[in-house]
């Protein structure tokens, strides 16, 4: 599983901006921030069926994930592109973060569930209680 160190992107934020540039904020940084706000965070799109599957998976395990629908977010397009870069593959969604750390797309999530590493991770993040 990938692990992402939090706050490592902060240094990339330019300190000076011209008046013409709109301060948008680094999409990756926003993703990280959102990912660390809850124990389980799923980046999704409301029309995506695989996203529905991953949501059902966590709900079925008794976990209550926080879901960010990119198609309903004004900065969703940028975050989608950033996620594709992060994963190194398309599609961008669904992507799952547990305890602020990147677990991955659907295949990684399922692999980690089958090999028994997902549940301890969820417990560690406080998303699951025995």
């Amino acid at each position, binding site marked *: 599983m990938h692990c992402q160190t939090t706050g490592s992107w902060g240094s990339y934020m330019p300190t000076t901006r011209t008046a013409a540039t709109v301060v948008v904020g680094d999409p990756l940084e926003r993703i990280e921030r959102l990912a660390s706000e809850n124990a389980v965070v799923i980046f999704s799109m409301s029309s995506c*069926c695989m996203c529905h599957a*991953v949501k059902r998976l966590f709900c079925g395990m008794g976990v209550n994930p926080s879901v960010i629908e990119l198609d309903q977010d004004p900065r969703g397009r940028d975050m989608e592109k950033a996620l594709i870069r992060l994963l190194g593959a398309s599609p961008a969604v669904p992507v799952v973060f547990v305890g602020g750390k990147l677990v991955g797309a659907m295949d990684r999530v399922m692999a980690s569930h089958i090999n028994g590493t997902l549940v301890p991770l969820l417990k560690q993040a406080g998303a699951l209680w025995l």
Partner: protein
Amino acid sequence: MANHNIPYAVLHGMNVPTSFIHQEGSSFDFGELEEAIVLQGVKIRNDDEAKAPLFTTGRPAATLEMFPSWPMRFHQTPRGSSKSGGESTDSGSAVNTNSSKTENQLEPESPISTKKTTPLDQQQGMASDISRTGTSIAKLPQEKRRGSTSEKQLDAKTLRRLAQNREAARKSRLRKKAYVQQLESSRIKLTQLEQDLQRARSQGFFLGGCAAAVGNISTGAAIFDMEYSRWLEDDQRHMSELRTGLNAHLSDSDLRIIVDSYISHYDELFRLKVAAVKADVFHLLTGMWATPAERCFLWMGGFRPSELIKMLISQLDPLTEQQVMGIYSLQHSSQQAEEALTQGLEQLHQSLIDTVAGGPVIDGMQQMAVALGKLANLEGFVRQADNLRQQTLHQLSRILTVRQAARCFLMIGEYYGRLRALSSLWASRPRESMMGDDHSCQTTTDLQMVQPSQNHFSNF
């Protein structure tokens, strides 16, 4: 006298480096050695030209050394009457020293070689009492020794003999070189054929297209069916390896190799399915690649992992408590994953229905485009299902010991073998009368007959 010290190659105007020529005055001892080195160099250059990008330049020397004893099975070039009677072995004219034409010369005999034999004949005619075999080179050290001890006062007869030996040695080297070049060109041909086949397979040429045209299935589906039937043959082989490995009470490390190769065998199937999903997802989803009985239990283009584990649980005894927990946990997590994927697929179905059925048709083509996009999502689900199947098998092998894993995989293989056998029986069951009871009895007896030899019913 000086003539005999000039190398044959130079005498007949062959392309030879100039350094080779200036050994007229040198002692006889170095002549053969330098000759051998130079001919080796000539051969390496020739082979480099012949082989282009396919082989590294280091190869020719290596292959030359692969044949310490040279083959004697060459064509005999028809020689003139000047041929001496003393020849016991073939002095076949396997002369292929022409650099650029090696790839066209598959046989040792060639039009070019005949040109060279006649001067050879002339030299052979000079001394008729010496037999020229591959051992002529072995004779040379003796000759050299004799040559040096006589303080270079060599008489004509000795000179002739030495020249003959040189000739024989040279011819042997040329024969060897020709043989190696023949092998090399065959190798090139083989590689090219393999590449063509690979390319044809990937492009679905001929076999795929043919089968598709005949069977009214897509090329991708035809290719997968072909590859799957080959996989089934491999499966049989792996199963018998597992069986003999278990019965032979191999060591754990030996058994581990067999088990790992069976897992790789399944990994190969999942690789094939990845390609098949892209080519024709519906073929996988409908299960037409599998036998009817297997199709009964089809889930998202393949077997349902939790069902497989359920089948195995009772037969895997004895298990440690930790193993039991591991297996049940695996079953539970795969059930959860299956449920999640099923629900996702259901949402896709519903969304598709909405698109295709949905309301007043404002823009038919637009609707179709949207529907097409949604259909494409099916590929993702089959891929995830295959991923789940693969992960389950890997996890099984982690939980179990080597022997248990071997038995487990054997069980899996036999289980599907029986399902396939069942399908065959079903297909060939008598159907004339619809008298229910008679029917079932017949089928049961067939099954009983089949059971001892179930492993033969591997293919549908």
